């Protein structure tokens, strides 16, 4: 009953709203109609939707898949090698970045990116406002920084679960660090990497607050990824029906990414079971 009340019913209602002309306020706020595929055609012809979809994919890949995953993996590997105290301290700092509220993370990066901020100081140019000069890069970096701890924790757990004898054998055989990483560690961690990618995609597809605080989707529409576009259409422009359709399109995009990762996971599992059968034989 709880599942139906709290999950299925609102989803089904949103699905229905996506095919209506419901407005936040206006002539269709109360007397709205089922409009069939009108919102679908509008979506297909809407240049802003396609622009936001492109931005969402770039954001997902740059910030989630590459940024958070690579950063998380690098941190997990470095912490494994670091002295106990230093590793724990680094881990704690990264986790703090994860647990602070989204609004605080956004405010911190807002300050960093201002003229005279830390980023400008680091790059030797304290006159540039980086939220204006490179807005998408800034929101990707902020989001990757904010969420990297999640991947780090996942990879740290996966690294601890690896058979130590295999890694020690590689050491004894004199394998280089690069060879150990790409030929032993990463292949053995493939299930964890795929699961991480799936979860990171999940988290990033609903990213909203950090970007809203940093740029409000701007300058112009330079950082208006789909969750922000959905909000703008629904609550700034007031077209709730079409906003729900944008949400539905976001769901489809998520499903597309999920399918890719799920297929990859299943293929990897099949290969593993074939190897195991061969080994037994």
């Amino acid at each position: 009953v709880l599942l139906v009340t709290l999950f299925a019913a609102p989803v089904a209602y949103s699905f229905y709203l996506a095919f209506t002309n419901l407005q936040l306020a206006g002539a269709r706020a109360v007397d709205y109609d089922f409009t069939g595929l009108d919102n679908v055609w509008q979506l297909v012809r809407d240049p802003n939707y396609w622009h936001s979809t492109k931005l969402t994919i770039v954001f997902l890949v740059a910030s989630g898949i590459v940024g958070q995953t690579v950063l998380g993996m690098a941190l997990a590997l470095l912490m494994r090698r670091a002295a106990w105290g230093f590793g724990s301290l680094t881990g704690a700092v990264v986790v703090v970045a994860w647990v602070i509220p989204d609004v605080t993370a956004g405010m911190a990066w807002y300050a960093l990116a201002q003229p005279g901020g830390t980023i400008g100081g680091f790059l030797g140019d304290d006159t540039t406002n980086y939220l204006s000069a490179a807005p998408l890069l800034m929101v990707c970096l902020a989001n990757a920084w904010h969420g990297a701890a999640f991947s780090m924790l996942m990879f740290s757990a996966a690294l601890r679960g690896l058979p130590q004898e295999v890694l020690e054998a590689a050491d004894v055989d004199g394998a280089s660090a690069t060879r150990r990483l790409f030929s032993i560690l990463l292949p053995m961690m493939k299930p964890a990497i795929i699961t991480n990618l799936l979860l990171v995609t999940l988290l990033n597809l609903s990213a909203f607050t950090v970007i809203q605080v940093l740029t409000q989707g701007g300058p112009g529409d330079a950082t208006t990824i789909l969750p922000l576009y959905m909000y703008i259409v629904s609550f700034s422009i007031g077209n709730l029906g079409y906003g729900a359709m944008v949400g539905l399109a976001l769901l489809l995009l998520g499903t597309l990414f999920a399918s890719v990762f799920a297929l990859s996971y299943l293929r990897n599992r099949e290969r593993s079971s074939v190897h195991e059968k061969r080994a037994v034989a």
Partner: protein
Amino acid sequence: VLILAACSSILVAFGSAVGISAAAGTTSRADTEISLMYSQAGMAVSPAALDVWIKAVKKRFEATHPGATLKLIPTPGTDTDQQNKVKLSMRSASTSPDVAFITNSSLGDLQASGYLRPMTKYARSSDFWKKFPSSVKAIGTYKGNVYGISLGNNLQTLFYNKKLFRKAGIALPWQPKTWAQLLQTLKTLKAKLPGVAPLFLQFGEGPGLFGSVNQTFANLLVGSSTPYMVKPNTGKWVVDSRGLRESLGFYKQVFSQGLAQPASTMTGANAWAQVMIYLKDDKAAVTLGSNWHLPLWKLPGDTNWPNVGASSLGLAKIPKQKGGGYANLLGGWMSVVSVHASPARAKLAEDLITLMQRDSSLVQLAKACAFVPPTQTAASSRGFLSFLPPHGVFSSYMSFATAAPADPGFAGYGRGVLLATSAIANDPSLEIDDLIKTIRTETETAVGASGVTTMR
């Protein structure tokens, strides 16, 4: 499954947000209690002063109506947050406030929803209505009926830094008569004052729809050769016109010729304040701003407003493109009464509005919000003029100001203009045709293709 669940969570939130209020039923409330929903931070420059004002209103209302109660519902956040809360709350009788403060740009949407109780008879028989200039009456009127009673207005001006003008050798007082004269002055300022932005023009998400569109762009549009956001007698939004192109062309000209501030200044939530900060810090010579920007004009050590105003800050009317008068778009905040209010509560609501419309009350509110009071008597009163002396100039603008349209759909049109002006400011090489397409797309998202028109 996880991805589906995560994405669905957005839809769950969406469905819940829209559905809960839509599904709510009607509940009866005591006819002796009325509620008032108002914006805390979105409306006032001094939320503390607004708090004092509203508590005084409550006290006086309850004292003059024994047995009646005024329930205050303050809403935090921006003016947009407040408008959305009003729109969602008014969907059902059980959540609707009896009285709400809204901006003029929400009036059409709320009226078209059927949420507002007409107040035509009440307004026309009241004393305060007779003291409203026609533009103030117009912003609360839609299709001949009065739905909103203005609480305070915003008008615009060209602020200029007299010190910088003297330095550039420009004669004071300065008053351009056409856009060409304005541009000529900006070119002179650029030549004489390197490092100073000749003009500061708001755009983008920071100042939002009010700052970027109503209080900046629209003041050019209403002075252009087709001065319409909505085509007269049609209710359709004008998404392409000579005037729209002229106004966008003005942006293109000032940003491409280095006559305006760097585009990066408008990034961030406090961008709205830059209008005055740039001017008083001698980083901009002219800014297009509103009456509510005035309290931000404070130089270190300044204690005496009249002297500061006289020596440093100049105000000039916004010229029309080809002269022949001046342009200004009048907007502001107003009281509306919900259709869900019972007749007895509607009567109390009107009594509350009458109480708030006393000149002394309007002046107090104007001080808290840096408004121009809606009645001519309050706008010219000593109590108001002595607060911030240049306010008297804004009061005089009401006589020629154009009322902002009360038609539904402003959010879409405004979003289009906001994106278009932000785009041209960041990339002045863009073509006007592309900006026009943006305005059309966004407006159609709000009102559909049948709700737009062109005036070429």
